[in-house]
Every structure is written in structure tokens, then in C-alpha cells.
């Protein structure tokens, strides 16, 4: 549309509300006006000259608009980072991520005291993310649960997104603890991821929150307690068990992906 403008005659007819302007010219004119300041200025001049009703309208509007705009403040520049963060971790999760941190810290202290550092990390790693995962879907902890569950995004995508947020917090924590307590990531990372994936898979059947609680309890009863009682690391944490954990991770991932529809029904499990 470069260089060509609408004729004053056409603009005049437009301003005066002429209903007989041919369809294609009208289309072209209105579309052109949206992008051409020169023609808008011509329109303003024409309206001022030939259409007093428009001028009156504009004055009336401004007389109401001016005080109204004084009475309300413009929107502050967005706290975009806060909003972006909320799409990863719902506000209900934040305190529980804090609790996870506390637990990790506590474990480190205990480990220092009992000089069995690496074992503590290995024992805790698989269930530490579960606290955050449970929090992300626990009705009691997420005040807007009922609202969230009825939205299109509630489903596997959101579950994975929130789980990822949990892992992003928990895994570095474990890495740091592990570094201090000489627990190599190669030993606990795979069980940790596999257990988390397994929780999601089971969660597709009984509800992610319930699955997280149940599996955390199972781990506590069948792995942590015996390990402490017998002063010997449970067999599932043995390096030779790692391939099994790998298989668990893959199987869980497959289950989660193939049953992705189940996650849109999270609410109906309660």
C-alpha cells in the first residue's frame, strides 16, 4: 500500500456515514486506515470540517474519560518472572519444596553425626522428590485444586511440568549433599528418577498425590527401616541393581505416556 492513499472524496463519504460505498472500496479503505496515519489525520480533518456530530461525540467522551483516567492508575509493569514461575510450580508447592530442602539438610546433619553419610543420601534420594510431587497434586495443599483440575491444561503436561520443577530443585540439592557425603550420583540418580517416574505411573491409576504418599511409605517401610535396623544397605541400592532401576524407569515412562489420557481425570479419583 505504499504511496497510495485514499481520496478525500472517499474519506468524506466514509465519515458522513454513506452506506452506498461499494463493498470492496469499503473493505480496502477500512483496512488501509488501520495502518496509515496520514489517512487517519485526513479523516480527522474531514470529520472536524464536515461532521460536527463526531466532534461532539469526541468531546463528550473525553470529558468523561479524563477524570476517570485520573481516578485509576495504569497497570504496573508486569512481574513477569513471578507469573512464569507460577506456571511451573503452583504456589502450594513452594512451602513443600522448602520442606524438602529442610529434610535434605537434616539428613546431612544426621549423616555427619552418624558418619554414614553416603548411605543416607542413597536412602533418601528416591523419596525426596515425592514430597514435592505429592504437594503439587494434593487437594489439601493446593487451594485452587478444584479450579485447576477442570482446565484443559490439567493433565499429563501439567503433571510433568510440575514434576520437572520439583526435580530441578531436589536433584541439585542431592548433588550437593552427595558431594559432601561422598555418595556418587551414579548410585542414587537412577533410582531417584525411576522411583519418581514410577510414582507418576501409579498415580495415573490411583491419583498422583496418593501414589506419592503410598510409595514413600513403602520405601520407608521396606528399604529405610531394614537398612537402619540391619546396619546394612538394602539390596535395592546395590550397584548391581542399577540395570533393574533403568528398566523400571523405562517401563514407567512407557506406562505414563501410553496412559496420558488418565491424567486429565485426576479429579475423579477423589
Amino acid at each position, binding site marked *: 500500500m505504499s504511496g497510495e492513499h485514499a481520496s478525500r472524496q472517499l474519506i468524506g463519504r466514509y465519515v458522513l456515514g454513506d452506506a452506498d460505498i461499494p463493498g470492496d472500496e469499503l*473493505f480496502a479503505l477500512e483496512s488501509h486506515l488501520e495502518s496509515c496515519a496520514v489517512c487517519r489525520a485526513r479523516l480527522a480533518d474531514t470529520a472536524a470540517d464536515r461532521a460536527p456530530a463526531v466532534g461532539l461525540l469526541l468531546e463528550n467522551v473525553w470529558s*468523561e474519560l479524563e477524570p476517570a483516567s485520573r481516578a485509576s492508575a495504569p497497570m504496573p509493569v508486569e512481574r513477569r518472572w513471578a507469573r512464569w514461575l507460577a506456571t511451573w510450580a503452583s504456589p502450594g508447592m513452594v512451602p513443600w519444596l522448602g520442606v524438602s530442602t529442610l529434610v535434605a539438610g537434616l539428613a546431612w546433619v544426621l549423616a555427619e553425626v552418624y558418619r554414614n553419610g553416603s548411605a543416607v543420601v542413597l536412602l533418601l534420594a528416591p523419596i525426596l522428590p515425592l514430597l514435592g510431587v505429592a504437594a503439587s497434586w494434593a487437594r489439601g495443599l493446593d487451594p485452587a485444586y478444584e479450579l485447576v483440575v477442570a482446565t484443559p491444561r490439567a493433565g499429563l503436561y501439567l503433571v510433568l511440568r510440575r514434576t520437572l520443577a520439583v526435580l530441578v530443585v531436589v536433584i541439585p540439592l542431592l548433588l550437593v549433599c552427595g558431594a559432601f557425603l561422598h555418595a556418587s550420583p551414579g548410585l542414587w540418580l537412577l533410582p531417584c528418577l525411576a522411583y519418581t517416574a514410577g510414582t507418576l505411573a501409579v498415580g495415573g491409576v490411583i491419583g498422583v498425590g496418593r501414589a506419592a504418599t503410598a510409595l514413600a511409605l513403602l520405601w520407608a517401610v521396606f528399604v529405610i527401616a531394614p537398612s537402619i535396623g540391619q546396619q546394612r544397605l538394602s539390596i535395592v541400592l546395590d550397584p548391581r541393581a542399577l540395570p533393574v532401576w533403568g528398566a523400571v524407569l523405562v517401563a514407567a515412562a512407557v506406562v505414563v505416556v501410553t496412559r496420558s489420557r488418565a491424567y486429565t481425570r485426576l479429579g475423579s479419583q477423589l
Partner: protein
Amino acid sequence: MDEEQLVRRVAKGDRTAFEELYRLTSPWLAVRLRRRCSDDQVVAEVMQETYLAVWRAASSFAGTAAGGSAVGWVWTIAARRLVDAFRRRAHHARTPVVALHDVVSPAAEEEVLAETVGDDLGGALRRLSPELRQVLQAMVLDGLSVRETAVLLGVPEGTVKTRARRARIAMREALS
């Protein structure tokens, strides 16, 4: 200063920029709205709401439209406010739509902005019956959805869809 820069300054609370933006864009907006609604009071209401929204939410434009036009953004706000105003009145059965006139198509004495609308398309548009053209204007030019168009024109959604389909067929025939 162009409109985009003005909007960015409005976002920071610059009242002078707001007044200037109003001065530059309100004549165009008023004329365009008056061609869709015959009640000046409704137009005034819609314009007030639109510019108030512009004042309050200017920073959301600066945020989203990278390369979008400020004037286009103002129109999207105004169009929806217009539809809302019609909805409010539809309940009270006072819908102030612009009356349809039969489009008489004079010959080429009129200056045509030929580059925007090609000749075939232009002719087809010209020959469309008024109701079909109205639907096309609402949906294509004003950017309204089927539901919003139905409210604006005061016809059922099914009718809007039928007319839109017929218009598309007519236009496609013109191009082939």
C-alpha cells in the same frame, strides 16, 4: 511520535501521551464505530471503555505485540467492547444495529484502492449481497468470532455461519 511509541509511554503513566493518543486515534475510531452502531450513546460508552482499558492496560500491548500495530490493538479492544454493549442491550431488546442499504454499484468513476483488493476479489465483494458482506466485514475485517458476529448483527449463530459459507463460496468462485 507514532502510536506505538505513545502507547509505550502511556504504559509508564504518561498522561500527555494518553491525551495525544486519544487525539490521534479517536476520530478514526469514532467514525468506524458509528458505521456499525447507529446509537451515538452506545458509541460513546464503547469509546470510553476502550480508552480506559488502553489507559489501564497499555503495558500489556507493549509486552505482546512485537511488530503489531497499536491502532490494530485499540480496535481489538473496541470491537469486543462493542459486542459486549450489544449483549447488554440484547437482553433488553434494544439492539441498535446499522440498517442495511442495498449496495448500488456505480461504475469506475469511484477511485479504487486497487492494490489492497484485487480486481476479481473486488468485483466479487461488490456483488455480494449486503447481509453476506456484513458478515464478512465483521469476521474478516473486524476480527470477530462467529459468536460475536451473531451478537453484533442480532442474528442466530447458525445464520452467521451459513452466510459466511455462502460468502466464501461466492468469493472462491470469483477467483476461479
